[in-house]
């Protein structure tokens, strides 16, 4: 097993899938010779030819609309949209077409495509390069929304996403790309889309997070233990849609306390859906309202202030303690 960062792990997933299935085609802006601005597609054009890691003209709707056609015709396109802030140009191709061909054709056509795109703040980027808009895609019937939290699960989930017969939006946290390394097996590994994972066990409260916030939730859990002896159960959602509520509902039934953490704005954010599921399925087990530690309902500020916007470990610890009335 090699120790890889998330960029290398994603590259491994693409490389292996392209090796064994010639219908897997990478396309996007600068994904060829340049290997993508974050280098996720590094070396793919050299290894598989320019057709397989295809530089396109600079047009997001064009990239995704073309991918829809490629997928309908039997290929498995993996689009890279350079930053999720630019994916609104292609929003309608996902909402109107990728998500609907199966239904509109009564099952004859489907769109097995993946849209990979970096999301989230914390890397001191320009405007439009730090948003977390996963809820747009999670709200959309017909597509799946995946957000990995580590190199190993990023690799396994990307392989699953490429093989999935339905369109998958795959958000990659820029803050996690090179944040840490993890053992990633060379041999094939997948992780089912639509399944969450318990990362840490505890009986006092449930922390629910995904993507970059999962790391912070884990750090918060350690601090809660060290400083207050609080044991947190930590759930990594991994897929936002379809949302697996089984683990966090079971967990809340044990702990009676839930904190949801995301970078996305508060109102109508993923936390709202998660809180509603908990209310529906574990209401009588709750000892306190579900807490949400999230971004504020403003456009994420330019990077000088982004750390005041993104949930910090400190905020997670504070809100968790408050919930347990141990502040």
């Amino acid at each position, binding site marked *: 097993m090699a120790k890889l960062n998330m960029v290398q792990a994603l590259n491994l997933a693409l490389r292996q899938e392209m090796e064994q299935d010639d219908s897997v085609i990478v396309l996007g802006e600068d994904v060829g010779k340049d290997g993508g601005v974050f280098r996720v597609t590094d070396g793919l054009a050299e290894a598989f030819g320019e057709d397989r890691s295809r530089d396109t003209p600079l047009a997001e709707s064009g990239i995704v609309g073309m991918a829809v*056609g490629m997928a*309908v015709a039997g290929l498995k396109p993996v689009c890279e949209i350079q930053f999720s802030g630019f994916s609104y140009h292609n929003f309608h191709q996902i909402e109107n077409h990728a998500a609907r061909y199966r239904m509109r054709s009564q099952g004859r056509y489907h769109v097995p495509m993946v849209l990979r795109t970096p999301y989230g703040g914390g890397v001191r980027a320009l405007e439009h390069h730090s948003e977390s808009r996963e809820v747009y895609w999670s709200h959309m019937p017909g597509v799946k929304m995946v957000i990995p939290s580590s190199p190993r699960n990023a690799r396994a989930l990307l392989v699953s996403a490429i093989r999935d017969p339905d369109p998958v939006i795959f958000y990659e946290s820029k803050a996690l790309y090179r944040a840490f390394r993890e053992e990633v097996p060379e041999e094939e590994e997948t992780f089912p889309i639509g399944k969450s994972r318990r990362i840490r066990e505890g009986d006092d409260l449930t922390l629910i997070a995904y993507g970059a916030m999962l790391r912070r939730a884990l750090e918060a859990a350690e601090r809660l233990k060290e400083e207050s002896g609080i044991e947190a159960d930590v759930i990594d959602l991994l897929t936002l849609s379809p949302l697996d509520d089984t683990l966090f509902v079971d967990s809340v039934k044990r702990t009676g306390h839930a904190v949801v953490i995301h970078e996305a704005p508060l109102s109508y954010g993923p936390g709202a859906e998660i809180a509603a599921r908990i209310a529906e399925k574990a209401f009588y087990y709750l000892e306190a309202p579900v807490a949400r530690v999230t971004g504020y309902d403003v456009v994420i500020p330019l990077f000088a202030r982004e750390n005041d916007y993104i949930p910090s470990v400190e905020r997670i610890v504070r809100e968790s303690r408050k919930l347990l009335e141990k502040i």
Partner: protein
Amino acid sequence: MPRTLIELETKLEKLSVLDEAGNLDKELEPEISDDFLKALFRAMLLGRRFDERLLSLQRQGRIGTFPPTTGQEAAQLGAVAALQPEDWMAPSFRETVAEVWRGKSMESIIIHNNGFSEGDDADAKFNNLPVSVPVASQTLHAVGIAWALKYRKMPRVAMTFFGDGATSEGDFHEALNFAGVFQVPVVFVCQNNHWAISVPLARQTRSRTLAQKAAAYGIPGIQVDGNDILAVYSAAREAVQRARDGGGPTLIECVTYRLQMHTTADDPKRYRSDEEVEVWRKRDPIPRFQTYLMDKGIFSEEDVKTLEASIKDEIQQAVDRAEERMKALGAPLTMFDHAYATTPPHLEEQKRYLKTLLSVGGKEAQHG
């Protein structure tokens, strides 16, 4: 540094074979077998009569809103007549005549126009995409399909339809640009019917033609008389052959006219004059093609009468079959089918909920 001139290819071909009266330019007459000509005429007439019947069904409340095709039969048929069944077609929403030519049953169209997804079935022999309502968005799908065909070295082409209004959309320009850059086998067929609902062509573009937009993307463009099926067919056949031979994309502008409303929810009297419509009625694609066939001696008045009778019968049978079939449709639970390859747990849960509602009080219970 002086200002210099860059020489551009500025000339554009305009093709017309049959004039308004059905007079033929012999030199341009395409070689088409008598049987194929007859089949085309039948499809044209069927398209017209079916459209008339749909309009009457809509006015009687027997189908919902639909976009009529009257006046655009030659533009659609001339184009798809150049395709093989296994070629791909990516229509917009006004290509009913082309769809019927390519295996779509009138029965299914009626069922679809009644709001039942069961009408979205298709003849498996033909590679047709379903209708695409968001304007110009399907042009990119045709490019993607064409890219896949080229990648797989399949000798097939993709043809996509759109209107004059679509040439203002970004997706149209992205599609032409991508197709040009990738040199993929796709034929763009613009049905310039002069009106995007209430907005006339002159408010859509400052360009003299729509075909010239091809030049900006480095691909061939041609303008044809879209009410002249021989001209449309000639241009389409040439474009399809070029695409099949690896010569890349073509933009064909078919100059035609929407003789009816945009959809049955639209009242064109609010924005265009009867005089304008009358001018275009005289350019109707059907009589001129009929004149041509009669002049050629392969069709008589008597044949037309027989044809009209058989078409009337065929349409009536389709209406009867559709109305019979629809009696058995309407089970709400099918809305959950085809959402995903495998229905995820939360949808199974919602499906079970609706099923319970239905079992408690029948369909009425959920409507209160």
